């Protein structure tokens, strides 16, 4: 059964990932990168129910996870630059997770300290009468303008942080959808470059999702891939040997809950 995560509970991408990665599993199956990635994406798919200020951060972590996950589908080549930079990215993510876990723990300690501190009540009583007149003039050097400035500080409307999210298009993190879509295109056109397959989908996550879909198709033998230069565009060739539906069945581990019908991120 799918592990349900309520995203509202999480403060940000690191928080969510930390939860997924450190929680105790009830069942004995090992939590794999693949499961974590899927759960992360599923939780992220619900992001439109939140304010979107953290959407960008969520996407960046998602992309890293997807890249890591896709890396295991490829034969590892020792000393491969792409692989080592991916591992660097992994280490950075790990370091940030450890830091996040550390400060969370420290925060819990502070909470206990503040709770304990609240049980100490400091002496705070009014001056005994015979000293009141001696107390120095509190209003020395205070002019009406100081008052006005203080009042303005308190009453000023706090800046409303409106996050421009126009650059965040609806999240289509479903690899399954991408497989079906790519298969359709490839069947019709036989030879298509990866760049063309991505089309206008410029969001990093969509590119990553399509890339994953292509790898799935390749693994299943439905396409052949050709890359002329190291960083050149990949060209995909439809082999016609496997049906897209079969690939989909095999790839169901990638299925990610689609955003609710109300639409994705706005």
């Amino acid at each position, binding site marked *: 059964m799918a592990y349900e995560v309520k995203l509202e509970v999480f403060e940000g991408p690191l928080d969510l990932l930390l939860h997924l990665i450190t929680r105790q599993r009830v069942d004995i199956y090992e939590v794999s990168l693949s499961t974590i990635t899927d759960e992360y994406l599923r939780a992220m798919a619900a992001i439109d129910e939140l304010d979107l200020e953290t959407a960008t951060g969520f996407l960046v972590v998602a992309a890293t996870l997807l890249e890591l996950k896709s890396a295991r589908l490829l034969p590892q080549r020792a000393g491969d630059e792409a692989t080592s930079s991916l591992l660097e990215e992994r280490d950075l993510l790990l370091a940030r997770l450890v830091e996040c876990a550390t400060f969370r723990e420290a925060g819990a300690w502070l909470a206990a300290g503040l709770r304990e501190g609240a049980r100490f009540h400091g002496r705070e*009583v009014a001056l005994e009468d015979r000293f009141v007149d001696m*107390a120095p003039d509190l209003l020395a050097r205070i002019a009406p303008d100081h*008052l006005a400035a203080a009042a303005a500080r308190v009453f000023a409307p706090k*800046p409303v942080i409106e996050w421009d999210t126009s650059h965040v298009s609806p999240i289509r993190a479903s690899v399954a959808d991408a497989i079906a879509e790519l298969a359709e295109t490839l069947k019709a056109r036989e030879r298509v470059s990866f760049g063309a397959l991505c089309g206008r989908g410029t969001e990093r996550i969509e590119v990553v999702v399509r890339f994953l879909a292509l790898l799935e198709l390749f693994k299943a033998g439905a396409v052949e891939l050709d890359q002329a230069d190291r960083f050149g565009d990949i060209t995909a060739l439809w082999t016609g040997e496997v049906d897209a539906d079969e690939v989909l069945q095999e790839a169901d581990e990638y299925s990610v809950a689609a955003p609710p019908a109300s639409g994705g991120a706005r």
Partner: protein
Amino acid sequence: MNERKVIESILLLADEPVPASLISEVLEQPRAAVERILETLAGEYRADDRGFLLRETAAGWRLYTDPECDPYLERFVTSHTNTRLTGAALEVLAIIAYRQPLSRAQITEIRGVDSDGVVRTLQQRGLLVEAGRDQGPGSPVLFTVSREFLERMGLRSTDELPPLADFMPDAEAVEDMEAKLSPNA
């Protein structure tokens, strides 16, 4: 429970003389027992030559500084610790001056921080005064700035305070702040 200890802690916190009957209620102990402890404590402080005394007045029991220490206490009170309004006190004064009358709860709500202590100090220093009670539930005490305060500021009434708009961050500054906070910055 150590009754002596709890009584001492109550005395340290209480802002006004505490009747023995109230302590006996809090402790759920007979009043006579409480009074015995209070008297013992008062005797102890005297015998130990402490800087504070426990005295019973008509209103109840309260800790006082020993008058013997007065010369030093005067120096302490007039020393620079309290020579300036704290930021919190200035804020409370400003809020009341511009929005009076206000209850303690309203002030706390506007500031987002508990402000009872500050209100008490300002009242004691004659800068705030009580001005009736709110009609609402609990009919809380309402505060306004004092006449003395207005005089010191050279104002005939709070209407003469500078318009707040002059001190508000201008629209441009707010926009600029927003831009800096936006993720695309």
